[in-house]
């Protein structure tokens, strides 16, 4: 066993870090935050060019066929710079097509997704904001060859910039995964402004939107299982991003503790400050262990994968928030300002905590697994 990135992965990490540091400095993050969509065409193009958008998609469909550890490696670097925009949505939508689509559908979507020409997102949550697929209530009707959907989805990330919104609906006992063109008649996207302006959320309303039944993903398989798997992939990606955020906050706080002086010495010489920093390291490294394990377990289809994902997200949800809080505390007043970049991470940590289920949600999943209920 070797629980470390291999040489290739380390090189990949370092080049990704360098590139993102140059291409996505905090000024750019702030500029994008102020826009309606936080999406930047040039950054998107860069990600496509680097192969990041299709990193884990099958090679037959324009992807690079890499595993989730590689995805975690770049996601961590993205989290470190607080990269705005729809990468995570792209991963979620790509995984959903890869898991649920038939070969015709994969051919139709994946290549364009990998090249950045088609942006996707997944509309899952409803009024109760429950991440469990079985909680989906929005019912679809059958009309001849079509599925017809009317109703609304909430908290859909990046819906404004998406070309296709994969809408999860209830079809009796089963779920149906409907690709809906964002510009289709009857689709209305409204912003849901929230605390983290780097990843925009939307309400998506559907009014008598008809989708040919043959277009639904996974109709001939098990759409719910495919959806769960796609959620796991996206959740691990998010965890890795959160680890990157923690790493930035940790490094920034430690650096500050070394240079800021009060009472004639660096504040880092006070044990109260040292202990905050030590705790931040503990939280960050533990998050990293949990995330890398989950990424590996999902890649190799380890039986512990589902539990590993929930363990990672439960832990990271609390850890990222805690790391940010401690980071602010170590900085004192300056850490509480808009001008100082820590605030970007405080907000990102709160939004990430909620996205794909908070710690309470994932602890419940772990409980069900250890109790043999699932």
């Amino acid at each position, binding site marked *: 066993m070797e629980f470390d990135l291999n040489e290739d992965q380390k090189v990949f990490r370092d080049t990704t870090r360098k590139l993102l540091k140059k291409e996505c400095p905090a000024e750019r993050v702030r500029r994008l935050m102020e826009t309606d969509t936080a999406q930047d065409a040039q950054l998107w193009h860069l990600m496509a060019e680097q192969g990041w958008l299709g990193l884990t998609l099958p090679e037959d469909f324009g992807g690079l066929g890499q595993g989730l550890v590689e995805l975690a490696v770049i996601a961590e670097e993205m989290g470190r710079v607080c990269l705005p925009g729809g990468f995570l949505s792209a991963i979620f939508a790509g995984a959903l097509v890869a898991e649920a689509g038939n070969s015709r559908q994969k051919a139709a979507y994946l290549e364009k997704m990998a090249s950045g020409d088609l942006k996707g997102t997944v509309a899952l949550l409803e009024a*109760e904001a429950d991440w469990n697929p079985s909680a989906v209530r929005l019912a679809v009707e059958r009309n001849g060859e079509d599925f017809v959907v009317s109703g609304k989805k909430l908290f859909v990330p990046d819906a404004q910039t998406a070309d296709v919104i994969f809408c999860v609906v209830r079809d009796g006992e089963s779920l149906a995964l409907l690709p809906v063109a964002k510009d289709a008649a009857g689709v209305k996207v409204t912003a849901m402004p*929230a*605390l983290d302006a780097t990843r925009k959320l939307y309400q998506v309303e559907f009014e008598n939107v008809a989708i040919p039944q043959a277009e639904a993903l996974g109709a001939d398989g098990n759409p719910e299982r495919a959806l769960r798997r796609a959620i796991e992939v996206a959740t691990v990606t998010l965890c890795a991003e959160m680890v990157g955020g923690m790493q930035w906050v940790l490094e920034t706080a430690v650096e500050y503790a070394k240079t800021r002086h*009060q009472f004639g010495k660096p504040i880092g010489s006070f044990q109260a400050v040292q202990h905050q920093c030590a705790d931040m390291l503990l939280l960050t490294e533990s998050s990293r262990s949990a995330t890398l394990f989950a990424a590996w377990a999902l890649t190799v289809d380890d039986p512990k994968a589902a539990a590993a994902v929930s363990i990672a997200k439960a832990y990271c949800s609390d850890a990222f928030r805690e790391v940010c809080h401690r980071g602010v505390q170590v900085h004192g*007043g300056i850490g509480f300002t808009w001008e100082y970049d820590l605030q970007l991470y405080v907000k990102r940590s709160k939004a990430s905590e909620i996205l794909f289920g908070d710690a*309470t949600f994932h602890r419940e999943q772990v409980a069900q697994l250890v109790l043999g209920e699932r």
Partner: protein
Amino acid sequence: MDLNLTPAEQQFRDEFRSWLAANLPAPEERPKGTRTELGNVTFLKNWQKTLYAGGWAGISWPKEYGGRGATLVEQAIFQEELAHANAPELIGTIGLSLVGPTIIAMGTEAQKQRYLAPILSGEEIWCQGFSEPNAGSDLASLATKAVRDGDDFVISGQKTWTSFAQMADWCLLLVRTDQEAAKHKGITCLLVDMHLPGIQVRPLRMMSGDSAFNEVFFTEVRVPAAQVLGKVNQGWTTAITALMNERANLGSGLQVIFRRNLDALIERSKTVQRNGKPVCEDPLVRQKLAQAQIELEILGLNTMRALTSLAKTGIPGPEGSISKLFWSEMNQKTQQAAQEILGAYGQLSEFDNGIWAYGYLRSRGNTIEAGTSEIQRNIIAERVLGLPKSY
């Protein structure tokens, strides 16, 4: 010990209750919850004026300066009743909780006559010019200087994190008046008119997006020497009195806001649904609501006890740090609990007018402002528990 109110206290409470019942602004007159700290200034100034006119401002301040001349316990009952009635919070917390008590303790008769009543009526808002870029926790190393020139002091330097400076009429300012003396011995406290030439206020944005604090620049600002509060070069004593009052009083005043917030959360938990039920039926949510209620109750009890002891000793002691630590960490925990209870909705800017997202972010400043938690713990360890000094 007798926790029953004395007949006099009971009468005080009943009187205030009926006054509140008659004078509380109707719900439709009240601004909605706000995403900024300074959003309701006009409304709150008017509310303060109403309280003052009714004789309900400065409960424990001397009568001759516009106060009610009542006891500290009655002051606490007053705060509790405000919270209980979901009254608007008091504006001018700096004036009410730290400047006023410090002037009462250390001011000249002329200063008391001039400054106290307008604090109580809400006519004059104060700010606290203590912190500087290089003097935060180590406040005594402050560098803004004041040089004596005839009957004036001439002030030059910079303050930072000065809350409410943009709307303040006056500033309780700490300056260095003796460059040679040891750092605690060359400080003087001045009462400075914020409208004087040479003062420039530059708002700083907090992470919550609004600007409740500011940088304040002083360029050769002339202030008459009569504006010294306490004694020249003994400003550290004045500063400590102000800080002790701040720590002791702030939490008690904030209870009004905390109560309103928790009540709103409790109501919300009955409408937000999860698993087909209101979240208030979820045992985990109930635990969180109960914990928030428990801590808020204890904050009130701690405050009462501290005030009883203060009524005997007259000067707030280092125990005030207990109150400061308690309310700041309590509010952070409660705001986080609110986020967990509201789930995905808590982060939204338009859900309940954004008060949950705002409250969560704003609470992160609580363990920094009015002295960081680390400093409060140092004070408790060294000055209350008598542990050896570590720095």
